[in-house]
């Protein structure tokens, strides 16, 4: 099973500019999480901090009892072997062909024979649909292929944590859907902890078990997908629906005057750039391809979420309860339309706490 990643009070700045501060969240073991956020909110920086490529100034990142922010270089290299990272452009080695690129981690870290290496590499290449492209150089193939090759390379060592930096950028919607399916299938097969950083709403709605959002130098929220998908938080609502109306501006923040002007335009009938439908709400998650094992993460998450359901906001509770089957509702002792516990003053939505 994948490992748990605990992030506590993390703060990163470049010079005087704070990228984000006091980010606290836990990636539950073996589950798929998505981190959303407008461009330029430091999503990639967050991902690079998780693998120790960037050193945050404050806070902790604990994996298997080791704090990545303060551990030795040697220990960091050991921990990194548990990671598979898909970079935005694949980050393939330009001087090697695809086969050698994907075989690279195996040749560096294992004593496998060339025949075994070949078997594993071809298996992963088939998984991402790159059969026949072994001899191509990264410069000769399209961005989408580079991305898939990068994913294959991230997978050869059977990582326990998979981090994907914008898996959809540069891919068409169909390939993005295939990639989403691939990530869920992977999770079912190797039960790795997966974190996807993206601003693709479709991925956010259908792939993850947990959803988080970064905005204005802090974590707006992080928790079970239902919480963010049903949230009334203006930032979340604006982002999910892709509207211009709301706190997010062209440059990251928007002042009150601009907001008022835009509201006036909208009131006068000028379209705000989105379709009128509200895409918030819980839609079914992608399931593993038939024939693959059931995702253990789903069961574990259900238990976990049900144990904290009384802390969640009302709409999220409703959404979760409605998504349960009749038997499960009986097992957990909840009924559709009735809150699990009298709604106590909820810590949501400001606290991106450990759930």
């Amino acid at each position, binding site marked *: 099973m994948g490992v748990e990643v605990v992030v506590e009070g993390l703060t990163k700045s470049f010079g005087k500019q704070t990228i984000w501060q006091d980010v606290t969240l836990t990636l539950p073991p073996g589950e798929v999480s998505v981190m959303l956020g407008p461009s330029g909110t430091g999503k990639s920086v967050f991902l690079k901090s998780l693998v120790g490529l960037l050193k945050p100034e404050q806070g902790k990142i604990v994996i298997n009892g080791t704090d990545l922010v303060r551990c030795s270089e040697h220990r960091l290299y050991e921990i990194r072997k548990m990671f598979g990272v898909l970079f935005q452009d694949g980050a393939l*080695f330009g001087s090697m062909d695809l086969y050698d690129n994907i075989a690279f981690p195996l040749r560096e*870290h294992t004593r496998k024979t060339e025949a075994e290496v070949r078997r594993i590499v071809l298996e992963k290449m088939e998984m991402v649909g790159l059969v026949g492209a072994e001899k191509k150089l990264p410069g000769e193939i399209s961005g989408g292929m580079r991305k898939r090759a990068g994913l294959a390379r991230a997978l050869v060592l059977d990582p326990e944590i998979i981090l994907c930096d914008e898996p959809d950028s540069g891919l068409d919607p169909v390939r993005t859907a295939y990639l989403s399916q691939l990530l869920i299938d992977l999770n079912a097969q190797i039960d790795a902890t997966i974190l996807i950083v993206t601003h693709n709403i479709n991925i956010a709605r259908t792939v993850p078990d947990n959803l988080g959002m970064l905005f204005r130098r802090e974590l707006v929220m992080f928790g079970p997908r239902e919480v963010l998908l049903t949230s009334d938080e203006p930032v979340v609502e604006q982002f999910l629906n892709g509207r211009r109306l709301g706190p997010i501006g062209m440059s990251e923040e928007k002042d009150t005057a601009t907001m008022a002007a835009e509201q006036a335009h909208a009131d006068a009938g000028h379209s705000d750039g989105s379709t009128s439908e509200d895409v918030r709400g819980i839609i079914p998650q992608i399931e593993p391809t038939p024939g693959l094992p059931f995702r253990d993460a789903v069961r574990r998450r259900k238990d976990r979420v049900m144990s904290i359901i009384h802390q969640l906001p009302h709409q999220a509770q409703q959404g979760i309860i409605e998504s349960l089957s009749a038997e499960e509702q009986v097992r957990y002792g909840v009924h559709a339309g009735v809150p699990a516990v009298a709604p106590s003053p909820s810590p949501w939505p400001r606290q991106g706490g450990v759930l």
Partner: protein
Amino acid sequence: MTTQASFPGAGALRETGKLCQLGIDVVRTTFRRPFQLREFIQQSWFIVSVTVLPTALVSIPFGAVIALQLGSLTRQIGAQSFTGAASVLAIIQQASPIVTALLIAGAGGSAICADLGSRKIREEIDAMEVLGVSPIHRLVVPRVLAAMLVSVLLNGMVSVVGVMGGYFFNVVMQDGTPGAYLASFSALAQLPDLWISELKALIFGFIAGIVAAYRGLNPAGGPKGVGDAVNQAVVITFLLLFFVNFVLTTIYLQVVPAKGS
């Protein structure tokens, strides 16, 4: 919170510190198994291929200029018989390490810097680190060692070509006597001169490799940063090499007594 001191020159000191740290890391990592033999051979071959022809072409006129200058000088003071001795000394001790340094920094170092820089901005270096492979061990060490090896070999070549060029111009153009030129070779020069020459070349190769790698691994933002980094690497290396050459020459002249004194 990491506090950074800010006073005039703090930035320069910090950069120098990081450069030295990379140097130390490279020396330490050199002895880590497994040694990247393939990369080392490829890089050595690559550096040779970009430097050998320019070096030969530079060293012939260099040797010639020294021979011509010394030839007329020695004639003026009536010491023609020492022309050969003086030009050998000048070429082996000074000209040849400097020519080597210029070419290793200008041709080899710039290529190393551009290569590492473009890998850095394509996130290849990050990817390598994330795959648990140290880029210093895997990429920098073989390149620095290759620069050192090639620099020593080039130094030998420059010495030979330069001395031959000097001989040719002295004998053919200035009507020097071949016998006197050859016979005076060992009048002033001695074996330690050759050692210091090779030692200088070795150190110059190391410095050129480290500076190129450091600038390549830390380009300032984007493709333009790589171009700037290459430029800076070459300039910084030149400055360092001439300074180090001055220090080494001073020490050598103090430590090793001149022949006949």
